[in-house]
């Protein structure tokens, strides 16, 4: 089969599944007496078309991409880390603790705050690494369980002033919030064509290139991939699964933590407005994991996937004005994700069937 035919086939398959997903959503909306077309228009308006919206979308895409990049790294080492939501929250908490309890004012603070965030995520992921390589606890279980511990731990921190809670003067009558980040400590948000987004967007893009390069072209990346493909062969050729695996998990967590810190210091769409608040992580960690898995654990496709998921989030904000319950966007998002999973699976299964048929013919 030629390349052209294959590409066309991909396009058709993707178009078909997306149409099916949207058709199901439209049936749900119409069956409950709503109008489907305005919902779709609101989604597009809210994510790209309306003034200032694509900047918002980029601002959401950046943390998603960061989380996804970390997931790609640990996945390449053959590790299943599904605890990004907790690692992200821990990163944000570390960044907040640094900003208000350790650091002083000044532009250097922004960098340090981000590094502290990465440290927080790395610490949380390393707890899973420690459990795995010291006690033999599968990381897929420990990372999942640690998410819920992180949520409670940060909730606890937000109750005590010596940890994360703001003093009475700056929190007003609100409970369980941290101080607001001072203006000169925030990540700059330059204005481009009427769209504002934090410069972490560029950082995330640069990191995506860096991760793709490191994994594909360096010795370290090669060893990591070897560990993921065949742990025994890797071990025989001198790649310590403990050292490389634990490092990969920690780096994965660091990316998630960095995303949390960037959300805190970058502002934008519903990220607590420069404060740490209950429910701060707002599913960004889970969604970032989805981004990585949708991109089949590759760094550059994750850039596209992150933007698509960010569009669904920012678009959702506009749906309410159409009179249809905005929860429908969760449904649309879920159906779209499921639909996007189908084409690669179908092609993969068919290719395998053909390869197996060819193999039996040769015998």
């Amino acid at each position, binding site marked *: 089969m030629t390349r052209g035919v294959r590409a066309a086939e991909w396009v058709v398959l993707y178009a078909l599944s997306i149409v099916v997903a949207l058709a199901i959503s439209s049936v749900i909306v119409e069956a409950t007496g709503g109008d489907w077309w305005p919902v779709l228009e609101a989604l597009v308006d809210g994510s790209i078309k309306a003034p200032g919206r694509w900047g918002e979308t980029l601002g959401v895409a950046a943390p998603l991409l960061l989380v996804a990049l970390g997931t790609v790294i640990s996945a390449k080492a053959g590790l299943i880390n599904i605890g990004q939501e907790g690692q992200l929250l821990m990163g944000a908490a570390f960044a907040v603790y640094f900003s208000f309890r350790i650091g002083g004012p000044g532009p250097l603070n922004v960098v340090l705050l981000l590094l502290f965030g990465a440290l927080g995520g790395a610490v949380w992921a390393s707890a899973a690494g420690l459990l795995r390589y010291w006690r033999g606890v599968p990381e897929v279980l420990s990372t*999942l369980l640690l998410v819920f*511990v992180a949520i409670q731990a940060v909730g606890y921190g937000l109750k005590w002033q010596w940890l994360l809670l703001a003093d009475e003067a700056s929190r007003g009558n609100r409970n369980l919030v941290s101080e607001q980040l001072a203006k000169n400590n925030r990540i700059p948000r330059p204005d481009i064509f009427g769209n504002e987004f934090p410069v972490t967007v560029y950082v995330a893009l640069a990191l995506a290139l860096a991760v793709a390069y490191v994994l594909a072209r360096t010795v370290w990346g090669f060893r990591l991939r070897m560990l993921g493909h065949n742990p025994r062969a890797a071990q025989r050729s001198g790649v310590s699964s403990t050292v490389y695996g634990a490092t990969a998990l920690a780096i994965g967590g660091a990316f998630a933590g960095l995303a949390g810190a960037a959300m805190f210091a970058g502002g934008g769409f519903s990220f607590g407005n420069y404060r740490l608040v209950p429910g701060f992580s707002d599913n960004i960690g*889970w969604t970032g994991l*989805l981004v990585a*898995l949708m991109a089949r654990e590759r760094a550059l496709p994750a850039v596209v996937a992150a933007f698509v998921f960010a569009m669904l989030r920012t678009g959702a904000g506009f749906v309410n004005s159409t009179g249809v319950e905005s929860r429908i966007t969760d*449904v649309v998002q*879920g159906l779209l*994700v499921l639909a996007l*999973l189908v084409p690669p*699976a179908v092609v993969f299964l068919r290719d395998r069937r053909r390869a197996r048929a060819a193999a039996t013919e040769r015998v």
Partner: protein
Amino acid sequence: MVLIDFFSAVGDVLSSESTYINGALFAALLAFAATGEWVAERSGTLNISVEGMLLSGAFAGALGYHLADSVAVGLMLGAVGGLIIAVVQAEMSHRLTADQFVVGLTLNILVVGLTGFLDREIDPRADYASEVEIPILVDIPLFGQALFGEPWPFYLLYGLVPLSWWLVYRTRWGLELRAAGENPQSADVSGIDVNRRRRQSIYYAGLTSGLGGAYFLFARLATFDDSVIGGQGFIAIAAVIFGGWTLWGTMGGCVLFAGALSFQLSLQGLGYELNTELLQALPYLVTIGAMAIFARRVRPPAALAQPFIRGLK
């Protein structure tokens, strides 16, 4: 003085029947979900859409009551509600070979959105199920009311749990299922359709979780809200892990975690605020601790969370 008051309050809580009644109520919800989750995990699939299955079951249960005015219909529809999520999960992850975590996480989000949306649009009303007391046994002090004086769907558990044990350990189907979870390659060579067994185990989890969600609705809530399950599905997963992938251990986990929750609620009722965060994190901390201590002796099904594709590996 404060400390003495506190300990007398703990004594009051431990000696009051309502603590045990509440505990049994939560434990039953966890047990419904965890039983199915246990079956699924024994077949080698880490089914994290159990949260969505519970919620879907609760909503479908409310819908069933709304339509037919009957708790029994509600329960049946609840099981179907869980099954629908299970079918999507199973077909996507164990037929189309999509990543099971993507499917599971997506389904969890999807179900919250869908039930929340439909709840606003339809607004189904439900009611409490009637309580049935089993004579003589109900008079046992402390535990009697909690174990034998519950809303009637509770008693389904007394059949469901032994049935699940029998299915997994005493039938050919169960043997094949465990083989699929321990060594899918060998199972495949000996003629077992690995992914089919895994799909079936997920259907089973969907049925029991859906039933569990509907049970919780009729036993405690009587009105649906999209936050009613609130993470209990993940606690059920923790219970399976805590139990070291044995059914009795899993049930022990359910009782322990539900007991801790009920204890905290009762103490709050008496005006004592424990460290709620610690208590909420307790199921997960205890599970992590148990895994760390017993990890070398108790091990998960060898192929847990590993997809099976014939000819690969």
